[in-house]
């Protein structure tokens, strides 16, 4: 039951939290953009995913600055950052950690557990599709449960925990496509495109000169956690929630809200994780837009990045040249807010 006396105070507090969120966000973004030229959508997407408490998959041809973006973020936020370069001969123990034999003071030996690079706040999984499915699967528990289990030992990962993985869409030789279970764990899949002409000039000026850009940390772990809490506090109206659900159901073949293209060309639609991701990313979007509740437009704006990797095209769709982005667009055209 609402308290008429406290309501204005609570509203004032919410407004302050939202304002704080926007300020911190802008500070981090500006710092990242010191090193990263252009790619505003990708930078926004990465920050959105991090603040929504999810993981990001960055896809793009080599040389577009995917790794640089994540490294810059690691520098801009004072977090424990680690990088894993995935290779075909990498084993799960290389990611999670293993027990090694160490010398003791008395001249003896003992097994001591050494944490792997996954035990960090911000993990850059570079070229994740070069590792075998066995090693890729080592990330599953960490990404969903925020913990890793090695033998009888379970290590709780420290918050904020965020995996930012990159993959190359063209060099498919010697790579292993990510399994659906792992893809579903990524909150967003961002496609990094080629820069514009004026961005090329800026890139050349920054990278071919004598000085190198040094980034200062402008935020830290507790601030990120507070921002995540603010995001969670944003309310979602019933109509917006219904719209998000219908968008997700629209990607599933044979459902009431799916257009004809989905029935023909999609083998597997989005899971409920897709709806969760839509709402969470919509909350961040609403806060950045200066609103205190999520709107249908917010959900629709993040839908391509949230749903594209959760849709599996079938053979018919592949033969027709249907892309996941086209599928998501068809769903957005078919499902209207307030319908």
């Amino acid at each position, binding site marked *: *039951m*609402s308290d*008429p006396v406290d*309501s*204005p105070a*609570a*509203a*004032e*507090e*919410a*407004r302050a*939290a*939202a304002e704080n969120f926007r300020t911190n966000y802008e500070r981090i973004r500006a710092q990242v953009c010191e090193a990263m030229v252009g790619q505003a959508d990708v930078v926004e997407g990465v920050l959105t995913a991090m603040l929504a408490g999810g993981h990001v998959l960055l896809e793009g*041809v080599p040389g577009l600055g995917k790794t640089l973006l994540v490294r810059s973020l690691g520098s801009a936020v004072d977090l424990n950052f680690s990088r894993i370069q995935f290779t075909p001969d990498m084993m799960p123990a290389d990611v999670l950690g293993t027990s090694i034999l160490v010398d003791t003071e008395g001249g003896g030996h003992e097994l001591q557990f050494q944490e792997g690079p996954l035990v960090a706040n911000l993990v850059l999984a570079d070229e994740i599709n070069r590792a075998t499915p066995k090693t890729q699967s080592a990330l599953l528990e960490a990404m969903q449960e925020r913990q890793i289990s090695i033998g009888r030992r379970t290590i709780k990962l420290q918050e904020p925990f965020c995996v930012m993985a990159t993959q190359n869409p*063209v*060099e*498919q*030789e010697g790579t292993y496509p990510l399994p659906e279970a792992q893809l579903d764990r990524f909150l967003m899949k961002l496609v990094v495109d080629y820069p514009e002409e004026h961005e090329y000039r800026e890139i050349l000026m920054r990278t071919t000169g004598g000085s190198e850009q040094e980034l200062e940390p402008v935020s830290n772990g507790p601030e990120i956690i507070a921002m995540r809490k603010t995001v969670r*506090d*944003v*309310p979602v*109206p*019933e*109509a*917006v929630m219904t719209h998000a659900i219908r968008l997700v159901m629209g990607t599933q073949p044979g459902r009431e809200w799916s257009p004809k293209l989905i029935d023909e060309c999609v083998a597997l639609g989005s899971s409920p994780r897709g709806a969760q991701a839509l709402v969470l990313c919509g909350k961040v979007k609403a806060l950045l*837009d200066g*609103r*205190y*509740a*999520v*709107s*249908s*437009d*917010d959900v629709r704006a993040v839908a391509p990045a949230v749903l594209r990797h959760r849709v599996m095209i079938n053979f018919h769709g592949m033969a027709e040249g249907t892309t996941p982005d086209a599928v998501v667009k068809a769903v957005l055209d078919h499902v209207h*807010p*307030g319908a």
Partner: protein
Amino acid sequence: MSDARWDPLRAELDRLAGDARHGLRRVQTVTALRSELRGQAWKPALLLLLALSASLFGRAFEATWLQWGGGMLLALALVPYLFLAGSRALALGRAAVARQRALGEWDRQCGLSDRLTAADEFLGTSTRSGFMEAAVEDADAQMERVRAAELRFSHTPGTARGFVGPAFVATGLFLACLWAGGWSPASADPGDGIVVELPPATVAQDTVPEGEPPVREPEPAPAGVEGQQRPPDEEASSETHASDAVDEEVNKETQGMTGSGRSSAAEASTGAGSAQGTPSKQGQISKPGERQTNAKKKPSKPKAPPKSDDKAKKNDEQESGSTAGRGSSRGSNRNPAASDWASKDHVNTPDDEDLDDEDDVEDEEEEQEARGGMQPSLRDRKPPVSRDLSIGFGNQPNPDARGRGGPSQPKKSRGTASLVLGVPIPDRIKGQPNPGKTKITQERVQPRAEPASAAAAEARPAREAPSSALRRQELTPWMQALVRDWFLRQRTRTPNDS
């Protein structure tokens, strides 16, 4: 608990929702009417088509009731259709518009990103968080902007005329078709229909054969009465039609197409009459005396003409194939590629003329031979041996078992029954191991040039799209050695060798 602070906002939201509901209902009605007219347009179209067909048939067969029926169909077509479309549109228009949808329309048109909808929902909740309260305040701050705005609906009644238009255009088109097809209310009038009048003497002379009493025609109405009933111009036209009809009748008579020499029994049955008329269409000029003989002979052997036709067809087919009528290669007669260029090798044998129904069996055997020997036929297949171990029921499942207590059909795969070899393995399999007889079909076809456009040579442009993953072609070690040796030999070869 409701907060009195927000009562003005609630009242404002109520007003906005009411306004939007009114407009949305109007849009709903128009949209429903439009969709009804579009979706159901095929029904009157079908009925109009039926009316057109009926009137055309009515005119062709001089059945005035059909013409009237067509008109009635036409009249009845539009009434239920319009009534149905209107009533459904009204029903849909009266359907309630949700408050959320009404406020959402304001949000959409004022670009408020669901602020009003969210505020309305949050005002209805008993416990509001700080963010909800902030969202309500945010919506309240936007109210000035909303008051200044005016709702505009895309489907206003003014534009509805455009949607209804196609249905009326379609109706008009069908009416035009009706008119073009010759149907008109004047021609549907039974009193003004075309009446073919023949002088009784002419009819008797032309149609009644010798030795048969003339068929009594109804007495023609007096000219004065007929003339009073019709206007002079129509009378003249009807007379013209009548004289044309008489000429046509006389022409048919000379070609033996009318079948008027048939008996009255033959004339009474329309189906038989048309069937009997068929041979006379082949240009036979027959005398009246012969017509009667033909009419009497035809029922005695009704299948004779088709059989002769079949024979003729078979002969034609055999003539079209170059290897016609030669043992096992007779199947080539059915080759659709065979041209009408007649083979000179073809010789007509008397056996070919005695083909009858027994040829089907022979054909089947010959086809088996043509397939390269004896092939297993469907007739040779026997049902599999029953694996049922129960006594006294043969292949039938034990009716008392009911799936329990014995090896009935559903439990075949379980227990001892599954161990019994149920599929018989034949000692000898029909057929032959080799491919069998070779059938060669030769066709003499005159060579024909096939039109084809020559491709113009042009320089290949540079690749525009980014190259995808390319697989490198790597030779196996032994092949690399082979290539290396070959090149070394080429290099060491003296000029005299080449």
